[in-house]
């Protein structure tokens, strides 16, 4: 896909995020929107997957360690064809297969249940280890929040991945700079994030998480790395694409009301128009 096509897809993914969270009257739009470009690249470009065969043997795996951004994962899965986009409005509702946090038994395309922070990355390490044990060449991607890395288990998992040279593992940190209680550096500063992963024997790549050229190159470099797991630290804007949500910690876990929803969708429609003009 061209960058222009990817941008359009990412905008559709963002619409799905905003629509599902609005419909649920709850959920986590901020960190879903910040990661929407990465979600889009992973599912439309990077990963070896088949929406018609979600459990395809030898597929690449994805674990959403920051499981609260399930609206982002669900939206990209729906847009990629795993299930109907219309179903996104069932998010968090009784009887829906789109649970508040990812559930691998309910949702096609979800490779691991997650949501309790710090745990998904360990499961991703286990998947990468399974590939090594079975001498298979699938890759494993996991997305973490920058607040999430305050959890000690993240560093247990990283120490193991570095020690075992799991070069088939790609850890992505969504560095949008905000967590529930405020700026990450004010709550409990995790910086420098890149130096920490370097110290745990990772191949570390810093990028702008909204630049598809940089995303493409980072993930290609990760694939090319033969002796280390890769950590992609991506600088992003929390709430990206929706004017009033951008860089506002208050939109970490809050749904837009009807009026706000209309504004959000108008913002995303304006991005659509811009993208079309650019073509």
């Amino acid at each position, binding site marked *: 896909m061209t960058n222009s096509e990817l941008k359009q897809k990412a905008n559709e993914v963002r619409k799905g995020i905003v629509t599902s969270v609005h419909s649920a009257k709850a959920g986590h739009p901020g960190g879903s929107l910040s990661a929407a470009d990465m979600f889009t690249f992973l599912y439309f470009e990077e990963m070896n997957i088949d929406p018609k065969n979600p459990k395809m043997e030898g597929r690449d795996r994805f674990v959403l360690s920051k499981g609260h951004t399930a609206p982002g994962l669900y939206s990209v899965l729906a847009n990629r064809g795993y299930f109907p986009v219309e179903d996104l409005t069932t998010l968090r509702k009784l009887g829906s297969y789109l649970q508040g946090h990812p559930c691998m038994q309910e949702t096609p395309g979800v490779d691991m249940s997650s949501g309790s922070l710090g*745990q998904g990355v*360990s499961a991703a390490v*286990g998947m990468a280890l*399974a590939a090594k044990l079975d001498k298979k060449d699938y890759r494993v991607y996991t997305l973490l929040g920058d607040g999430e890395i305050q959890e000690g288990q993240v560093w247990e998992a990283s120490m193991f991945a570095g020690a075992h040279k799991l070069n088939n593992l790609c850890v992505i940190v969504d560095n949008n700079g905000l967590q529930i209680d405020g700026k990450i550096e004010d709550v409990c500063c995790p910086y420098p994030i890149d130096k920490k992963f370097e110290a745990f024997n990772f191949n570390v790549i810093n990028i702008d998480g909204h630049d598809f050229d940089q995303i493409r190159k980072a993930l290609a470099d990760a694939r090319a790395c033969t002796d280390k797991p890769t950590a992609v630290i991506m600088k992003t804007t929390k709430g990206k694409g929706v004017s009033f949500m951008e860089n506002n910690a208050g939109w970490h876990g809050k749904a837009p009301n009807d009026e706000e929803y209309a504004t959000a969708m108008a913002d995303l429609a304006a991005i659509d128009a811009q993208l079309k003009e650019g073509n």
Partner: protein
Amino acid sequence: MGDKIATRESYGNALVACAEDFPNLVVLDADLAGATKTGTFKKAYPDRHIDCGIAECNMTGIAAGLATCGKIPFVSSFAMFAAGRNFEQVRNSIGYPHLNVKIGATHAGITVGEDGATHQCNEDIALMRTIPGMTVIVPSDDIEAKAAVRAALEMNGPVYLRFGRAAVPVINDNPDYRFEIGKGVKLKDGNDVTIIATGICVDSALNAASILEEKGIKADVINIHTIKPLDEKIVIESAKKTGKVFTVEEHSVIGGLGSAVCDCLSANAPTKVVKIGMNDCFGESGPAAALVAKYGLDGEGVAKTILANI
């Protein structure tokens, strides 16, 4: 009765014995392979043993990830860490997705001995049995421990197996013995009292029954090796017959075998139940046998409690 052997030894031996039949079996440790006896497996199958270092929560998550890719991981550590430290990892990363991970928890209960209270886990059965879909097995001796490991591998889904550090007598060496998950074993028939025991306390229950017999009291003795799912039929039948039930376990009286039996009987056949176990207290350092005696979990202690309550 055969020689004494610790069920952790049986665990290590059983893993080796099952390795060829279950090619997807892998064993994970957190720097305790020597103590959990999985070192036996590590020696025989080094490529299928993964030492995760001293990081039990990560080990549990790795096991979950391995299971999603078709492996059957056995996670090994002391009960204190495998169930205690790890509780939420077991619940959310293994229990909720109902993954095919087996947890081999050794050094359970006070028979850890000299290491003392920090390492004597008397709460693990309570923690594990609250997780939906979790099977909880507490073998009583070498024969049962080995059978339990194989049975756990044969079933799909998470299983918690509890093993001990101290050598215990072999009590199931009879030709009729067969192990089935969820099926209690009647060891003695009697009409006066019911003694339901699990793990190493099954031997204490048998000894207590002998002491009671000398005093003319005949006990039904039931070995409940599977705490969950509980064999309700055998419990209800015996309770209805004797009307007096005693449970014996090397575990807190809160949440363990005793509680499981009470849950069952209060709903099906209300019966007075006396729970013999750790009475809402921590253990302490000392030789295993001395601790078992001090806390009233040996045959004499169990008999004494029964006599005081009938």
